[in-house]
């Protein structure tokens, strides 16, 4: 009886020590859920969600904030957040905008550096009383540089599709019946690129 209790107690002590050690040794810094949420957010750092950046919004979501506040992430972002968190998909709380890049009208720019300070990703170069310009590949299209500009020389330009960025479209089947002639014996049965419109 006593030996049984002793054995159980010993086991409890050993396992407790093991658990205690593991919790110290394998301690996870930060909240892994926040990292996962942050990975889904588009990192535009635009603050349109009402939080100062993507990470703070990720932290807020982890604590229970709404998941439909991120316009750059779009409906797909909401869907992915819902999948991750097991929450219900909601309609986006703002309208979705096409991706854009900020352009500085270099003739109007007075070199005040206000936009440089506002840019969350340091995508604007320039110096006091020198013309500023935007490094387009780094611009996230957050529009944070628009309000501080005293001469309104910054505009958003929607990114147009180029040959390099063009994507094949999801195949759509015409409803119209074109007869049931088999096309198996003609080479156009191939890649289908021919009717790829």
């Amino acid at each position: 009886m006593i030996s049984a209790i002793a054995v159980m107690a010993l086991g409890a002590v050993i396992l407790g020590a093991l658990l205690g050690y593991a919790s110290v040794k394998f301690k996870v810094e930060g909240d892994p859920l926040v990292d996962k949420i942050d990975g889904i957010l588009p990192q535009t750092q635009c603050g349109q969600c009402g939080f100062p950046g993507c990470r703070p919004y990720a932290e807020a979501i982890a604590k229970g904030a709404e998941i439909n506040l991120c316009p750059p992430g779009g409906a797909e972002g909401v869907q992915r957040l819902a999948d991750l968190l097991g929450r219900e998909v909601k309609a986006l709380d703002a309208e979705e905008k096409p991706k854009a890049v900020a352009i500085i009208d270099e003739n109007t720019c007075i070199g005040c550096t206000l936009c440089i300070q506002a840019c969350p990703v340091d995508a604007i170069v320039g110096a006091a009383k020198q013309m500023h310009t935007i490094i387009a590949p780094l611009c996230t299209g957050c529009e944070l540089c628009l309000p501080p500009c005293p001469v309104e020389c910054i505009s958003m330009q929607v990114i147009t599709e180029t040959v390099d960025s063009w994507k094949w479209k999801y195949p759509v089947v015409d409803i119209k019946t074109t007869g049931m002639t088999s096309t198996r014996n003609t080479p156009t049965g191939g890649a289908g690129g021919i009717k790829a419109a």
Partner: protein
Amino acid sequence: MLQLFKFKGGVKPATNKTQSVSQPIAIAPLPSHVAVPLHQSIGGTPRPIVAVGDKVLKGQKIGEADGWISAAVHAPTSGTVIHVGQQTVPHPSGLAADCVVIEPDGKDEWIERKAVDYRSLAPETVRELLREAGVVGLGGAVFPTHGKLTPAKSVPMEQLVINGAECEPFITCDDLLMRERGEEVVRGAAIFRDLLQPQKVLIGIEDNKPEAVAAMQAAVKAVGEDFEVIAVPTRYPAGGAKQLIRVLTGKEVPNGKRSTDLGVQCFNVATAYTAWRALAHGEPVISRLVTVTGNVAKPRNYEALIGTPMDELLALGEPKADTNGIIMGGPMMGFLVPDVKVPVVKATNCLIAHSDALFPPKAPEMPCIRCGECARACPHELQPFEMYWFSRAKNFGKTQEYNIFDCIECGCCSFVCPSRIPLVQYFRFAKSEIWAREKEKKASEIAKTRFEFKQFRDEREKQEKAEKLAKAAAAQAAKKAAEAAAAQATGEAAEAVPPPAAAETSPADAVKKAAIQAAMARAKAQREAAASRNTESLTAEQQQDIQAIEARRMASGLAVPAEPKAE
């Protein structure tokens, strides 16, 4: 005789090649204008180096290669540049890209062509020359050739495969090239051989081209090389690089590896031909053989300038009245060009006049019945029905698990599908969607690191500012304290020499304090000088009074006698 291997899958569509091989290669007449797209090969987009109004000569470079994996582009004929900018290009999107448009002057005047003996040059120089001549893979992938001509250090190069299989229906340009210009193809292959130093050179040609096989065998003998010309069984897509390598060498290129990792490299016959022309004749790639066929009265192969409008080239074949479009490439992998006026590019091996009689519209798509025909037909041993399922559901992670990126889009699966599902379209959709996402992800990662760095920097600046302010405040306080101390000291010993700086203060502070003391002394002196101003113009009586007072003060020891200094 070499033992041949087999690749799994493949299909046997009607070849439709005989129509266009009865006539020899013809030189296409000079077009009304040539529009040369700057981006014609994989890799960087060449920068235009000509401006509107410039006179250019045939073969003059008009686009400078951008980066190592990129190839220069050249003026196909002499004339005047009339436009540099966006023009519709032969791309399934129908979008525009940068082009240089040249109006020919009709003289077709060459630049000075410099032939070189490549054997006397360093391999790097030869690769550089090929890059400058715009030599790219003309089989369809248009990968810059010089980028494939560096032998791998770790793996010895065993076989060099020269691809003359030309497996796609309708296309016969490589066939005619081998028949008529076989010697130059062999010499071009010798350049690649000399650069890569393989143990063997194998020229693979589908056995439905016996004339080409015979011509190449004769050419190899005439040049005196020991290349093996091998007829391979006709089965689409035997001309795929990986398939031909499999058939000729038995080596299977695994997922994620390149053929060079297995000691094999593969080039198209037309690429070998242009490489030879570039080095031995100094001619950059400004033209190529194009098969004009399909719904035309006179199908034939033409040597056409790059940039020739497709409708002008197709007109040479006299298209029939019901022609309603042009397919660039073959019927399996080609696409209907968005505009018949788009230019011929380096990747244009064939133009097929499209008509509904020749290519009847596809019947509607039916549900997948999971018969597995597509998996049996796939030359890469993929599972198209699974990839289709996940592409359709936009479950892109799963498509990657089924190795969608190994798909060469040959179209065998769509060809055999009894439900007429456009499988390749689904795969292309999934692939481009995955690429776009990867790009977006990379961009967002960059944005994240930059944002975090900016935050860190802002924080650091704030801290530095605070520290600076604290320092300034401390200095101010110290100064005040010192001043107070100094004032006290001067008050205590008003008549004495300024007291030495306090021992506990640092030398810098001492200097400062001394300066302050000096300034204060000067001020005092000034005050005194000003104070004595009212002593001028006094009456004798008053002066006597003052002297009496001074005498009294001196007697009582309050003042230092002023006179002794003067004495």
